[in-house]
């Protein structure tokens, strides 16, 4: 194979939600290597979120193999140690932020990792500062705006210093300025990540490869060709797949 270190490898993963006979993930294969900057664009309901949840062990596949950091993960307890190394940004920030105040929320991860209170506070503050949302530490989480919640959730994920980031539509609800900042932050980070987004320009700016999903399988770069045309086209600006 290649010389790159394999971080996440999914093989023949099949998953369907209980009570549904549609396979959301159908003999899906995915490999993420160290240093990969992957993007994922696929229609609503194609199973992107489900895929990320499967990687984190939140959805248990019906069959197939999950290998992360070279270890095969089967049970709940196998996933516990890797969850602090892989940071998942949820599609809905309200799910992710559950502490009364912003500072507590961002410090929740570091505290669980065993940092002292003072260290956790420091980590949380620097992470918030890096994202440009300092000064809101004492605010009540559920009273922040949608975009602010997104950034706080991102700070909460980054505060754990993960080795891999899985971002589920990070730009949804962000204004242009914050979106630009996010692009800068992601490009400045030296870590492996997979970004799901419907925002073509954003994905283009922060990733090297763009994947898609169809009928429960991953379509890699070779099979699809998503790009933006300079010429006039009936698809307009929207990215599309050439068959």
């Amino acid at each position, binding site marked *: 194979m290649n010389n790159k270190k394999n971080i996440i490898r999914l093989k023949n993963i099949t998953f369907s939600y209980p009570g549904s006979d549609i396979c959301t993930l159908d003999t899906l294969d995915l490999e993420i290597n160290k240093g990969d900057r992957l993007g994922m664009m696929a229609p609503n309901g194609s199973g992107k979120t489900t895929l990320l949840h499967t990687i984190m062990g939140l959805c248990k596949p019906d069959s197939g193999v999950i290998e992360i950091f070279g270890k095969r993960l089967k049970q709940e307890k196998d996933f516990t140690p890797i969850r602090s190394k892989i940071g998942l940004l949820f599609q809905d920030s309200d799910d992710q932020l559950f502490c009364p105040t912003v500072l507590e929320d961002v410090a929740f991860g570091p505290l669980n990792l065993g940092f002292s209170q003072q260290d956790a506070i420091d980590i949380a503050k620097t992470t918030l500062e890096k994202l440009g949302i300092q000064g809101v530490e004492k605010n009540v989480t559920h009273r922040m705006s949608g975009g602010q919640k997104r950034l706080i959730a991102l700070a909460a994920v980054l505060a*754990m210093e993960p080795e891999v980031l899985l971002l589920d539509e990070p730009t949804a609800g962000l204004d242009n300025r914050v979106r630009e900042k996010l692009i800068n932050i992601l490009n400045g980070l030296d870590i492996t990540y997979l970004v799901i987004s419907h925002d073509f320009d954003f994905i283009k700016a922060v990733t090297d490869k763009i994947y898609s999903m169809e009928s429960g399988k991953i379509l890699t770069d070779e099979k699809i060709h998503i790009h933006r045309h300079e010429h006039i086209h009936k698809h307009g600006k929207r990215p599309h797949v050439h068959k």
Partner: protein
Amino acid sequence: MIEEKFASGQSFIHKLDPKTRIVAVIILSFAAALCDIFFVAVLYFIISTVLIVMARLNRKDVIERIKPVFWFLLMIWILIPITFDGQILYQFSWLKISGTGVILCCKITIKSITILLLFTSLVATMSIASLGNGLHKLYVPDKLIFLLLMSYRYIAVIEDEYKKLLRAAKFRGFRPKTNLHSYKTFAYLAGMLFVRASFRAQRVHQAMLCRGFNQKFHSLDIYQANRFNFIFLIGISAAGLSLVILEKIWI
């Protein structure tokens, strides 16, 4: 909605360990609730106001906080004197005002305000996370503590969700009336709310797992272990005990 208005402060009370404060408030409020003599109840009331003063809270906010209890008290003042038996104070034709009832009302009034002030000065002066932490150290089961913390965070979310659903229904021309269609719609809304709440609970749990949650809880408030905690607790216990003894001897 729920605010932690009093939680940040620099007073002596704010610096006490949550554990100490919880134990103190339990001792004092039980003692106050069980006391039977009006004069002793007044003494408890004085203790509670002293604690409020020590916590250096904004007086207006404190009054705002205890306002709701006045409605409850008003109801008691209307009902009990005219329905209670015993020595009659006044009589307007058929309406008898019972003296025992009035005394009882006074006691209830002073006791309920006392207990509220105790909780405001000792418990409301810590953040909800610290409260959870203190309860944890006092061996309250973790499940109950989580219930408290999660409800605190998600009551607002559920309310939002309800408003969203209702708005969605209204935008589609729904007007609540007293007919079957309206009742059915409200039943759907309530049902949807439960479904969403339970899904959300599941997702929040997932999010917690993703951030290394291991059934343990941490709070960010740092409390120095100092002898004041001990002295405060001794003082409170002594005050409670002496008032109980005073009451027993009185009788």
